């Protein structure tokens, strides 16, 4: 009967309120409006919303933006804008405007907490706002700060939603909110199960929030939603610390404590009857401490047996903050499902990373592989050609302000410059050293240190930027887990392009035919009218030119320094050695293997890239044991050294 009566009174009040205009409602609660507090404002807001008056949202917004002023004498509230000591007042109900001097009016300044409450109340209006951007903004604010009260307005707003993207987002948020806040456990479980289909960070955060636990310790397992029970012996010190923190045990007596006790209780050169000179062993100290403890001068020793005893008489457990086991079980299952999906996506992402690294190594190594394969010459200055290419890009960007055009100019220019450098080097140095491969290695190394120092002298030691065009900024985001930057995609495409180009040159052109002939048997090729000198020169130029282009590509995503070549040269050698000499496909296989391996090892131990490189090199040393000539080895006479 009383319930019925109170409901009746409430309805009456609501009807009475709806009959009023907004100003009179505000006047009824004038004190709360003028000096709002976070705790009291809720009731007033509920009343305002219950009136269903169309002017409420506008008023709430203005209030929140500190644009509501109160007449000091009459106490009437106005929405107002201030300009040069005058106020343009807008009547809250009629919208009529008047301009008055600002004396005699007080601005309402709700504090941050109140503004947040107002904002929450506003959400339900914003959710049905005709403007899509405002609806989207309201949804984002819900997503940032999900609260139980938002669920009802969100569901109510679903009906009138016309924008399909926003509709999907609303449904998504409803699922998230119901998973956490729905009244009926069955609704929550249904929502949680729906969440299991998604892999977004948001979903995982929600599920983790539902599964939040707090550690506990007690003598007996309490009747609660227990997440896990721990065996304290797996980490006795940590669990004992928890026990001490819960005031269920006294701290362990550490060696430092014992030492301090010894120092504090020296009497006539003895501690507890033991001469200080003998206190250089743990056993003697224990004896002395026991005597002191028996005399009551120091607290009794808490050692390992006492610790273990205390640990064994207590249970250590985690309890869910959520009380309902059905919900936590559902959330656990959902999270497992989500994590499986995420792991799968991470594997894909790792694969993409490896592919991108492999394409960089391929670009860096293919030039080396060609020269090594055709001429049997290891070019230690190859890394410096990469550096030259990158610096070419940098210099061109100094003169061409448009980055897109600069890159388009830089690629062929870098090729031309390094091609020329390669041909010059071949003519001046390498030509004289054929049949002495080890000495070529050393001579090219001499060129390498000279070029590196030269670059240092010209460009200085600090890193120079090679900026990528704006359209290469950002990343292609497939999901929250799988994403890859556009630069890496561009490098991948470039690597594919050069793979195709080199295959075309080698297999479909006269030059390629002659190059392959010289690779197989220089003497025979020469007797067939091919000029091996010319072929060697062009091959070396081609290999160097590609290094220059690789330099531009690498410079786009890494820094340009005089030592950047050295960073890639060892990896390039590895690629060539692992892949096998004189075969484009071998280089491709080598680059894929090394790129994949490096990413794979990094994945196992992401914090330590140094260790990853170490293990990779060890792997390669072992790999060479089993395939000394690389993955794709030349067969027959061509394989002769």
């Amino acid at each position: 009967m009383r319930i019925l009566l109170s409901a009746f009174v409430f309805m009456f009040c609501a009807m009475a309120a709806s009959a009023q205009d907004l100003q009179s409602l505000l006047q009824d609660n004038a004190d709360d409006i003028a000096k709002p507090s976070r705790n009291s404002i809720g009731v007033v807001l509920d009343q305002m919303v219950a009136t269903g008056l169309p002017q409420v949202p506008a008023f709430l917004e203005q209030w929140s933006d500190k644009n509501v002023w109160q007449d000091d004498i009459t106490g009437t509230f106005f929405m107002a804008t201030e300009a040069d000591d005058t106020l343009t007042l807008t009547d809250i109900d009629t919208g009529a405007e008047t301009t008055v001097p600002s004396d005699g009016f007080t601005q309402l300044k709700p504090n941050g907490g109140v503004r947040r409450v107002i904002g929450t109340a506003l959400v339900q209006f914003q959710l049905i706002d005709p403007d899509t951007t405002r609806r989207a903004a309201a949804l984002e604010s819900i997503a940032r700060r999900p609260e139980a009260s938002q669920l009802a307005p969100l569901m109510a707003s679903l009906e009138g939603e016309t924008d399909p993207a926003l509709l999907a987002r609303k449904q998504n948020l409803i699922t998230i909110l119901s998973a956490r806040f729905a009244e009926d456990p069955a609704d929550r479980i249904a929502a949680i199960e729906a969440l299991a289909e998604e892999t977004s960070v948001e979903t995982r955060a929600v599920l983790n929030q539902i599964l939040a636990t707090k550690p506990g310790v007690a003598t007996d397992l309490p009747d609660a939603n227990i997440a896990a029970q721990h065996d304290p012996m797996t980490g006795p010190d940590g669990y004992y610390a928890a026990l001490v923190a819960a005031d269920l045990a006294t701290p362990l007596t550490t060696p430092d404590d014992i030492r301090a006790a010894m120092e504090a209780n020296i009497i006539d050169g003895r501690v507890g009857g033991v001469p200080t000179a003998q206190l250089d062993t743990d056993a003697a100290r224990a004896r002395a401490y026991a005597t002191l403890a028996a005399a009551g001068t120091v607290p009794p020793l808490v050692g390992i047996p006492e610790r273990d005893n205390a640990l064994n008489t207590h249970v250590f457990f985690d309890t869910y903050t959520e009380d309902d086991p059905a919900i936590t079980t559902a959330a656990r299952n959902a999270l497992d499902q989500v994590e499986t999906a995420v792991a799968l996506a991470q594997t894909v992402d790792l694969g993409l990373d490896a592919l991108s690294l492999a394409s960089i190594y391929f670009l860096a190594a293919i030039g080396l592989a060609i020269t090594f394969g055709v001429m049997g010459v290891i070019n230690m200055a190859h890394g410096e050609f990469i550096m030259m290419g990158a610096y070419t890009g940098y210099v061109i960007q100094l003169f061409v302000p448009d980055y897109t055009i600069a890159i388009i100019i830089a690629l062929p220019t870098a090729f031309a410059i390094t091609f020329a450098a390669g041909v010059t080097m071949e003519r001046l140095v390498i030509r004289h050293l054929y049949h002495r491969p080890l000495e070529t290695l050393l001579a090219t190394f001499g060129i390498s240190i000279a070029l590196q120092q030269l670059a240092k002298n010209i460009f200085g030691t600090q890193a120079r930027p090679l900026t990528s065009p704006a359209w290469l900024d950002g990343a292609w985001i497939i999901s929250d887990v799988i994403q890859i930057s556009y630069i890496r995609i561009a490098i991948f495409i470039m690597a594919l392009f050069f793979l195709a180009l080199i295959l075309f040159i080698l297999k479909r052109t006269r030059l390629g035919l002659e190059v392959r002939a010289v690779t197989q048997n220089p003497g025979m090729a020469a007797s067939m009218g091919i000029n091996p000198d010319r072929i060697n020169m062009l091959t070396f130029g081609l290999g160097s030119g590609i290094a220059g282009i690789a330099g531009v590509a690498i410079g786009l995503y890494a820094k340009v320094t005089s030592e950047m070549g050295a960073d890639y040269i060892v990896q390039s050698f590895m690629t060539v050695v692992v892949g096998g000499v004189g075969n484009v496909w071998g280089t491709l296989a080598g680059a894929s293997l090394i790129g994949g391996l490096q990413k794979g090892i990094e994945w196992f131990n992401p914090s330590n890239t140094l260790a990853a490189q170490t293990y990779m090199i060890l792997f390669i040393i072992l790999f060479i044991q089993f395939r000394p000539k690389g993955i794709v080895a030349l067969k027959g006479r061509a394989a002769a050294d």
Partner: protein
Amino acid sequence: MQNSFIARNPSVLWFLAALGLFTFGVTILSEATGLGLISTSFVKTLGKTLCLCLIAIAMDVVWGYCGILSLGHFAFFGIGGYAIGMWLMYARTETIVLESLAGQNIPATPQEISDAIGNQIFGVVGSSDFPAIWAFADSLVLQLAMVVLMPGLLALVFGWLAFRSRVTGVYLSILTQAMTLALSLYLFQNDSGLRGNNGLSGLQNIPGFEATPQATISIIFFLASAFALGAGYLFFAWVISGKMGSVVQGIRDNEARVRFLGYQVESYKLFIFTITAIVSGIAGALYYPQAGIINPGEIAPIASIYLAVWVAIGGRGRLYGAVIGAAFVSLLSSWFTGGGAPNVNLGFYTIQWTDWWLVLLGLSFVVVTLYFPKGIGGLFDYLVRKPS
């Protein structure tokens, strides 16, 4: 036997005589034992140079005589340095810790001493526990054994793997380079147990000789380095002069042919590779107490390449060539980079040798490789006409 060995190799006698004369001269002129015309730091530089000459002759044997261009011998040098450095650092820290603990009322337990030493040594890498590889650090004898054993074992395992699968030529060079790179990257990690990129420091202070002035210590190490170089020279000259030396040089000239003659090419190569690695380790163990500090940067691939440069400039295939190359290039290098060389003013540009020395070195290296494959040592051929 000894007589005929010397008789067949007069250069050994000449070298030992020159080395002896040089050592005697430096001792006479040094601060500790003589007139004080040579500063302590320069005595150290000379001592270090002698160690570099020792690893250079090892490099010459493995490359110039056996034809294995190893780009990883500085890894063995570094391992030797680390092995002796561990003892030096441990023993010295122990002395310091014991001194600081001595004043206390309660004598320290062995555990406390060990913890305090660990804290001192590994504080920089945020740890205080002794890693397993420091197990023998308190024993000089065991660490000296490590100086020989660690490089020897590494070279043995690596060489066995590499030679067994007939990795030769450029491939082997790259592989040895990978080995030294892997080692230096490993040591750069803080949890490698050897203080990461901080390396080991304070090695110039010899435990037990705190009162001895550095001038005396430097001359002692100088003499020890000179002795090691002389002994190493004699040993390698003996190794390469006998029948074995002929086989080894045969392998350099035509490996397949030697194999077809029935020799176990792999065993010979493995022996040479390992023995030179051990000598490199000893050279390192003598070098780093004079340098005072060792860090993983010392064994970066570039160091081993410079080693090849020294030997090439000095002249491969003759032991004194390696010595000349190492001494000449490393001293010249420190003269140029240390600002010893006067800058050249060209009017429009001033050549500062600290900047341009590497360019000069690189280019002159190319020139030597191209036109003087015999290096500086080749000049002696004009002086001494060997009876053919």
